[in-house]
């Protein structure tokens, strides 16, 4: 883990990334923006595939994790396609964005399935939701999410939900509904002001932990006592054995002495024989 984080020092910042892309793509980089911490690079559709290839293959960029690809409705001008890439080595995120040529009637864009395997289903989904055709894709049909014979492109803004047209919102209030006087109905923020039953909570958690700790201590105590008892027993046993051994030794010594006394003559005679 630490190794990964260390490699981040070499990561390019947004300006450097844009400069690098410009160097290879020239005029096809239309601009870039850092919004809420996310670096977005706007591209001309002609540079779409090349930019993805650069992002993956350029060693300084190395955007290896294909995060997602999706469409966004761009009102009269047609649709945007956005690809989010992430680099596991530098920890950077790059968002590529392009406006699909063909307007709302016949949007077509080149496919990047050759570069990222994960683009396959993402492009199928974009086709299913927006009707954007991807040239070079292995097969956009059958529609990936909706029913095979579904008519229309659900995520386009001109696709209206039939149920909503037929029936009003069944809940009590519409999203952020206005009251009779035209004011927004206000939510009563009464909870956030109170600090919450924190001290009691903490005390109880401490108690619970104390119980666990107590159990552990008791268990250890028991184990220690058991060990002590065992040690004492072993000691007693050892003492007993030592005593027994001593007694046995004494007896043996006595016997040996007696034997030695008895065997004195033959033993010495043996020695004499050996000699």
């Amino acid at each position, binding site marked *: 883990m630490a190794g990964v984080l260390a490699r981040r020092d070499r990561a390019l910042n947004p300006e450097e990334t844009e400069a690098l892309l410009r160097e290879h793509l020239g005029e096809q980089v239309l601009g870039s923006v850092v919004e809420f911490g996310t670096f977005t690079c706007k591209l001309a559709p002609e540079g779409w595939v090349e930019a993805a290839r650069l992002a993956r293959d350029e060693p300084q960029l190395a955007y290896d994790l294909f995060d997602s690809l999706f469409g966004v409705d761009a009102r009269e001008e047609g649709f945007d396609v956005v690809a989010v890439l992430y680099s596991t080595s530098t920890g950077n995120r790059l968002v590529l964005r392009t406006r699909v040529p063909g307007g709302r009637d016949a949007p077509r864009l080149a496919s990047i399935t050759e570069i990222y395997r994960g683009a*396959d289903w993402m492009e199928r989904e974009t086709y299913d939701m927006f009707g954007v055709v991807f040239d070079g894709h292995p097969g956009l049909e059958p529609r990936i999410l909706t029913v095979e014979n579904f008519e229309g492109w659900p995520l386009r803004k001109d696709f209206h939900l039939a149920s909503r047209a037929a029936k009003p919102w069944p809940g009590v209030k519409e999203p952020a509904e206005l009251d009779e006087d035209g004011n927004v109905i206000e939510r009563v923020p009464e909870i956030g002001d109170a600090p919450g039953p924190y001290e009691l909570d903490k005390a109880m958690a401490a108690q619970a932990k104390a119980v666990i700790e107590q159990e552990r201590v008791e268990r250890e105590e028991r184990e220690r006592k058991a060990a002590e008892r065992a040690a004492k027993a072993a000691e007693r046993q050892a003492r007993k054995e030592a005593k027994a051994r001593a007694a046995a030794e004494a007896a043996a010594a006595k016997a040996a002495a007696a034997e030695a006394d008895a065997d004195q003559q033959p033993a010495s005679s043996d020695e004499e024989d050996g000699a």
Partner: protein
Amino acid sequence: MSDLSTREKIHPGTAPGEDIALEIVGDGDFATTDMTLSIGPAHPATHGVFRIVLELNGERITAARPVIGYMHRGFEKLAEYRDFRQIKALVNRHDWLSGFSNELGVALVVEKMLEMEVPDRAQWIRMLIAEWNRVLNHLMFVGSFALELGAITPMFYAFRERDEIQYLLEAATGGRLHFTYNQVGGLKLDLPKGFLAESVRLSKLTQERLPDYFDLVLGNEIFQARTVGVGPLPPEVALSFGVTGPTLQAAGVPEDSRVTEPYLKYDEVDVPVHLGENGDSFDRFACLLYRIQYSLHIIDQIHDHLPAGPVNTKLPKMVKAPEGAAYQRIENPLGQLGYWLESDGGRTPWRLKMRTPSFSNVQSIPYLLEGMLVPDAISVLGSVFFVVGDIDR
């Protein structure tokens, strides 16, 4: 399943002009008629409505084609008709096993656009619940993967823990699966009395029972025989597919948003990540089990750090995100969840794209299945962890 044309295929002798003759094609292999086996959309192995069409030669898979969309409910469209408070009650249902993480993502991305400061206590509690949610999710997969391999008992064991945790979370949030506990700017309510004590107790209990799973499943000889070396996923292929979560970590890539792009207070706690070596089914499952253990480790740290203070901020009369687009990525139990929120300044989002982990993970299944036996397909389907609603949204 039982139409006449397929019957003719599987009974070669009955089709006119066809002989039951086996052609020997070198190495003693027989040339056999290929068979198409459609598993799903309602099949026990696919836990949910996921369909996969297999081309079989004997029991060997020559091609696999997943068919998805059976659970497509149009979340992204519906989100455009709901305001930012209502969206969180919607999104926590797409991955129904990780409701809290889903709504957390929305809360975070809206807060990011509003540039809102969330109270510390709320962030720590969010982390606590998110980690419990992760444990819940993973326990479910421990049970279901074992069930797919034919072992029924781990499911019952897993639900024993799940039930306890669900009761705990219900005490705080009021929900068993879909918590709807987040709000833009904090949480709905503070934790109830005694929650922490119970959480401490349960964390200890789960940690004590966790070795059961390691023994019963991971250490089981038959389990190992069924999973080791099955469906290895090389890291570069995994990344190209956009595979994340335990499936990616099993391939040995140390990518976990909690570490590499910390959100909430994950930079203040120790987040260990278990990495696999081969990316096979065994590694994927091992990563899942270790994630449970490490989540409990994080939960224990949160117990020690939880600060006092308010849990939400006063909101403006109407939550309206400013014009622009923001992207927020969080580590969902199954992988990286990304929300791309594009706003035109109105009270509903202009576009809310959900980048769900299962969608990308499942894409890798045809790659994994090619050349495998049918029973191995089950092992792979079970170990590339996915939730059907998370694929189809």
